[in-house]
């Protein structure tokens, strides 16, 4: 998942967030009525019943305003704080050639003021109530949030509602901010070899599908962008009927609904443009590319096109792929760490990722760095051997149970964070999954069998659907000021 946080401090920067599709199963499998399902799950697994018996159900509620804005509220009374988020169904997937990055640029411009709230005043007002605010743009959506003491919720709604309808975009503010975004691109991508590999892999893996464009945008598109592009984007997508509000915290849901009506209710519904679904032409053979950039360790990334979750109740394979990912890389005892890092010592690091819930096309990704004295070819062979072993020998009941236990425990630990709970709801909704179905997905994942994992591994890891990217590290003194990228070969 690629998050372009508007102003995350450099220290909080997490390389894993660069990845387009890392395993979001942590976010995916939240349950709204966990009491019964977790209890049943507990019987099935090694975890004792009493481990989860004390967990009370969490209550979530939903309403839809007349203008089409949906409001989802989850009460959590453990501390006197609240998270308020507004999600727009507009992300990089909705961009067109020549204006890549505009979804994210608009996210930056959303802090530049309205008729009522001057430039920079938004964050000042959040700070004044003791709060923190930020925003992030991804392939499928753009989201804004504030974490505040609970008494400040109404003020936050007033601010978000104001910029949903009254954003003031001008050329001068834009000219400053686009420079900031270019610096962000340099920091996140241009000077980050692994991020470059991911960006270039996606641009080769997809020929037609919009996931081929980076969320941050190509530099030349940023250089030519004008405030009018941002304005067009805002007018096209920033409407209450293309948004939803998620509130998690020490609140009463009826009161939140009342506040939402008061602040957001007056904003007018607008006709939304037709979304054209761009299907990727079927890949007809393996694609390989190389990225040369200053680094010491090589890096390998392998991405297979695989199905995503479409029918929550009937699909089986996406859940099996989720479990496959968890078996390979869900915890310390998972196969990639156990076999490749510790056992054979072929990898310095290795990981697996699969996100089943997204608007676009799904990929199953394996990546890693070879250990000292090993090559990317060795690592590729070893990763392929891990898949082959599952194709041929399947997985044990014990490791499947362990992967499910991790998922269950992760669900409980997630309840410790209001932000994580709000992200889970928001992320699912962005992909078109109703929050109430998060529970169903957990049940479905619970039902995955060892045979289904093996069958999915057999069916989808074909070279015809594979793109492989390799970082060829260049010594610091031998490279020019810019990283170079070689042309892909098919």
């Amino acid at each position: 998942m690629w998050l372009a946080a508007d102003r995350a401090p450099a220290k909080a920067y997490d390389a894993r967030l660069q990845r387009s599709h890392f395993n979001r199963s942590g976010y995916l499998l939240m349950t709204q009525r966990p009491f019964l399902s977790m209890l049943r799950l507990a019987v099935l697994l090694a975890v004792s019943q009493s481990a989860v018996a004390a967990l009370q159900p969490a209550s979530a509620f939903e309403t839809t305003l007349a203008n089409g804005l949906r409001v989802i509220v989850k009460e959590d009374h453990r501390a006197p704080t609240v998270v308020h988020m507004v999600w727009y169904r507009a992300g990089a997937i909705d961009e067109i050639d020549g204006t890549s990055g505009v979804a994210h640029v608009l996210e930056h411009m959303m802090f530049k003021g309205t008729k009522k709230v001057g430039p920079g005043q938004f964050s000042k007002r959040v700070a004044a109530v003791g709060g923190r605010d930020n925003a992030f743009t991804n392939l499928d959506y753009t989201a804004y949030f504030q974490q505040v003491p609970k008494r400040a919720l109404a003020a936050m709604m007033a601010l978000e509602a104001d910029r949903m309808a009254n954003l003031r975009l001008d050329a001068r503010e834009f000219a400053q901010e686009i420079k900031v975004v270019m610096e962000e691109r340099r920091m996140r991508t241009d000077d980050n070899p692994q991020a470059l590999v991911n960006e270039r892999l996606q641009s080769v893996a997809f020929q037609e599908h919009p996931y081929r464009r980076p969320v941050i945008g190509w530099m030349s598109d940023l250089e030519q962008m004008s405030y009018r592009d941002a304005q067009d984007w805002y007018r096209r997508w920033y409407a209450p009927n293309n948004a939803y509000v998620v509130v998690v915290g020490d609140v009463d849901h009826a009161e939140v609904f009342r506040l939402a009506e008061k602040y957001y209710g007056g904003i007018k519904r607008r006709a939304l443009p037709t979304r054209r679904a761009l299907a990727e032409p079927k890949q007809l053979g393996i694609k390989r590319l190389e990225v040369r950039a200053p680094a010491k360790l090589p890096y390998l990334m392998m991405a297979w096109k695989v199905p995503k979750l479409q029918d929550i109740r009937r699909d089986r394979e996406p859940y099996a792929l989720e479990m496959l990912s968890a078996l390979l890389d869900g915890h310390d005892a998972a196969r990639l760490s156990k076999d490749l890092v510790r056992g054979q010592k072929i990898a310095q690091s290795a990981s697996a990722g699969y996100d089943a819930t997204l608007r676009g096309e799904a990929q199953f990704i394996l990546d890693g760095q070879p250990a000292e004295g090993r090559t990317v070819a060795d690592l590729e062979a070893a990763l392929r051997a891990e898949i082959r072993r599952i194709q041929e020998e399947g997985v044990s009941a014990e490791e499947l149970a362990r992967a499910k236990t991790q998922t269950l425990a992760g669900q409980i630990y997630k309840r410790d964070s209001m932000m994580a709970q709000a992200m889970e709801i928001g992320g699912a909704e962005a992909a078109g999954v109703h929050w109430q179905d998060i529970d169903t997905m957990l049940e479905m994942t619970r039902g995955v069998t060892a045979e289904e994992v093996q069958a999915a591994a057999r069916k989808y890891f074909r070279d015809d659907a594979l793109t492989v990217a390799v970082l060829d590290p260049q010594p610091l003194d031998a490279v020019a000021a810019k990283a170079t990228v070689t042309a892909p070969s098919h």
Partner: protein
Amino acid sequence: MKKTLFGMLCLLAATMAEAGVSIEQWMTSSGARVYFVVSRGLPMLDVQIDFAAGSAYEASDGGRFAGLARLTNDLLDAGVSGLDEEQIAARLGDIGARLTRSIDPDRASMGLRTLSAKAERDAALELLRAMLATPTFPADAVGREKARSIAEIQEAETRPESILAKRFAAAIYPGHPYGLQATAESVGRIGRDELMTFWRSHYGARRATVTIIGDVSRAEAEIIATRLCAALPDAPPDAPLATVTAPARQTIRIAHPASQAHISIGLPMIRRGDADFFPLLVGNYVLGGGGFVSRLMQEVREKRGLAYSVYSSFSPRKLEGPFQISLQTKRSQAAEALQVVSATLAQFLEQGPSMSELRAAKQNLIDGQALGLDSNAKLLRTVAMIGFYQLPLNYLDDFPGRVEAVTAGQVRLAFARHVQPEHLVTAILAGD
């Protein structure tokens, strides 16, 4: 008049925002300090144990074995009496427990998050106890982790942010353990003997702080702490580290092909528990700690578009921890950005915060306190810090009052005392 009224309002707000976190504290018979907060909302438990065993303690041989503190911490789960690393990983996986490790110059930490039901909890805590009390440091795992650590160091030596951080730390702490850096050579020298010796002499109860947050009773927490610490090695108590001497003013330039220049400016600042902490906290919020609303953000990013991220931060430690301003900007703009930062800092040192800035900073720090304590994970971080540095138990309750009491004059004086321009180190990587 206006000011007084505002002060009263703030005090009222402070009372309302009072942390309400009740920390219980005691000592185990083995000599470990224990901090406990009961939290019954979720069926989970966090236990963290911090030892005075951070990277500053590996300097005793002149840095020949730099990297030893981290490697010791990393290898605690590589084998214990009766279990190999695969068995440990599998057992933790089977009960859904999660292990975290971290190292800073002062502390070596190990954290365990587990379900709080007795079966899972007991199994998880038994593994944690064994890792701390009976690590075996098997030769195979030692060799492998040394190789990984060396590869990581070599990779870091190509990355702009890592190169700058290392050079900056070495320059502000010349000859001091806080400036010591692990190298491929120093890690290469480490053997099983060094690991065993470091563990035996640093992972003792008298150097340990245990923090327990979650779904257990006081009586259960006492048993947990006692068991965890009963069989730790008999290490001597923490001895004071060498005194920090302030560096001379200097500018370091590092060549690198990156598209952005990375810049850090700073010096050693204050110890944890220093009376100037609150004025510095409030002042730093105004200067560069307060996100979007700080002066540095306004001058560098909002007005000029020179950087995506720019901030100032300070990290009090046992001894004078670092203060630093950091940013990245297109390499051709390095000089301009540095000039803006220097002017902003100089003006702040001279004039201190305005009354409205002071008010906004206090408001955010006081009203935002609850946000820093609204999960077990956040509580754990804060309470462990209070415990390790032996801050007063009422630190959280006193926090709003201490922040509110800060005056603009105190901020100016505290910054004048702790940020003296003649000691400022500037490091610039990839600046044209």
